[in-house]
């Protein structure tokens, strides 16, 4: 008891400073975590907080319904495929861009092309979606203009299931490639220039230098960022898809997050949507734990 008093007398001021943060976290992060119990209940929109808490548990009904529904596999496939396609393109792209920018010796050119390349990172997803809407517009859009010039027919690309995922992947690469290259360029700047000079004298070609000096030199950054990407694999881009999709492309575009949004907030099936959301949260946590374990296994420090 006296021990507690002694600690409080000495550190009380700091606990007091932390109180607002703790309060914020408990209300907006931890109460929703406890609120996950509604996935095991039947909560209707008009229940009060008290009624939600006291209503009875019904077990795993919503989960069973979700796993047995015909759209379960579609949602899983769309989520994973969109995410994997995005990783395949938008993961190597910044490495390639960094390698090319790193070969530029003119400082001004280097700085300007870099600054331009990460401008889209500062645009909101709504602005990016807006650019896509205008550039891919059927009437007056740049892309369809070029298609017509080369003898094609104008098309509604955004409403076409054959093109929708390509547009998602392209947009993601466009928005993230420049920003993603920063870390790699910083890692490259840390490599010893004498190694390159020695390689030059020994007659190593540019490609050989990239393969044997640059890439091994930045491999730790590549590995750690790749592991993080795997940890986020279930995030296929909720905001982007929500802004760009329409019923005509649901078959290739509807992911777990957009489904939870529609089922929960538009159709007001709170409990069912929470169950779907919880399923995703648990899967994502497992992926992250596995990715982190793998990072440690490779001798890297993960996120913890």
């Amino acid at each position, binding site marked *: 008891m006296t021990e507690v008093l002694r600690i409080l007398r000495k550190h009380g001021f700091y606990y007091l400073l932390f109180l607002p943060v703790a309060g914020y976290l408990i209300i907006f992060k931890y109460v929703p975590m406890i609120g996950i119990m509604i996935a095991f209940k039947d909560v209707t929109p008009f229940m009060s907080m008290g009624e939600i808490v006291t209503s009875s548990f019904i077990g795993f009904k919503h989960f069973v319904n979700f796993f047995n529904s015909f759209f379960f596999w579609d949602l899983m496939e769309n989520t994973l495929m969109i995410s994997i396609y995005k990783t395949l393109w938008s993961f190597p792209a910044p490495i390639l861009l960094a390698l090319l920018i790193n070969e530029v010796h003119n400082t001004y050119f280097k700085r300007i092309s870099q600054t331009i390349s990460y401008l889209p990172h500062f645009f909101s997803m709504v602005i990016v979606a807006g650019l896509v809407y205008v550039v891919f517009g059927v009437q*007056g859009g740049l892309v369809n203009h070029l298609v017509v010039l080369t003898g094609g027919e104008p098309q509604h690309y955004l409403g076409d299931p054959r093109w929708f995922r390509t547009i998602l992947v392209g947009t993601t690469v466009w928005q993230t490639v420049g920003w993603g290259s920063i870390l790699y360029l910083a890692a490259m700047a840390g490599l010893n220039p004498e190694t390159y000079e020695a390689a030059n004298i020994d007659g190593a070609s540019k490609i050989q230098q990239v393969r044997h000096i640059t890439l091994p030199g930045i491999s730790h950054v590549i590995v750690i960022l790749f592991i993080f990407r795997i940890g986020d694999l279930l995030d296929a881009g909720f905001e982007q898809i929500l802004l760009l999709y329409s019923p005509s492309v649901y078959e290739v575009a509807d992911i777990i997050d957009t489904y939870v949004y529609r089922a929960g907030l538009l159709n007001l099936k709170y409990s069912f949507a929470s169950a779907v959301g919880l399923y995703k949260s648990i899967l994502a946590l497992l992926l992250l734990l596995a990715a982190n374990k793998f990072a440690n296994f490779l001798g890297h420090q993960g996120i913890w």
Partner: protein
Amino acid sequence: MRIKATPMERLFYLGNYVFLIVVSLLFLIPFISVLSTSFISTAEWARRGNFVLIPEAPTLEAYQFLFGGSKGTVFNAYKITFFRTIVGTILCLTFTGLGAYVLARRNLPGRTFMTLLVFIPMVFSGGLIPFYLVVDRLRLTNTVWIMITPFLVNPWWLLIMRNFLMTIPVELEEAALMDGANPLTVLIRVYLPLSMPALTTIGLFYAVWHWNGWFYAAVFNSNRDLYPIQVILRSILYLGDASYRGDLGIMFEPEMMPPAQTLKAAMIIVTTVPILLVYPFIQRYFVKGMLIGGVKG
């Protein structure tokens, strides 16, 4: 020592410059094409009806439609965006700074537990629906606070801030305490001035987040008077989409509406220009902040 480039290498450098110029253009072209579309007049649109790089008679019709009229929707949206950005950033910095300051104290009992309290939400969340139920039952929906109160702390940025604060030597604090300063004075006179660089960077992170935020303002709020600029842009993007129950007629004066495409383009410009204006000044802070955060992840 610089070795003379071989012809192959010269070709590579030339190709590299050309390629990077093309890539840079790819970042700029969508924006330029939107800019030119926004200046097309209704008459020219009706006559030519396809892509126009340089309008024959550039007009401000679309901009007049957005800013004119008696409803003042866009002005009001700017007001909301400025409010949430300024008030939101100040509150975020206060909460994040205090949390980081406390967690940076190496000898504080319970520090590990408190850090865990911040860390867990980074890897697990209750999901959209329980979160909605909490903010709704707290009556934050349909108020301007829905964009601010539930987002006071980004755990990741708090931990970056803490790492920065831990680099400040403890001796400074000990010396101040020796001179008779109390803990509050130490915080305000010693730590606050020294953490200005980190506060600026993290503050800009929060400011851009608030400026760009749209989802909660659009989904957890149905009061049109509280729409920030991003949500107005989103409404305009759905113009011409039959499946969308448009509320543009309520937000603007629908007579003399310019073509949908020019209106979308003009609204994109209206939303983007403020970012472009501050971009040259803020981007280096972001790069710095990204590299600090990148040391660990």
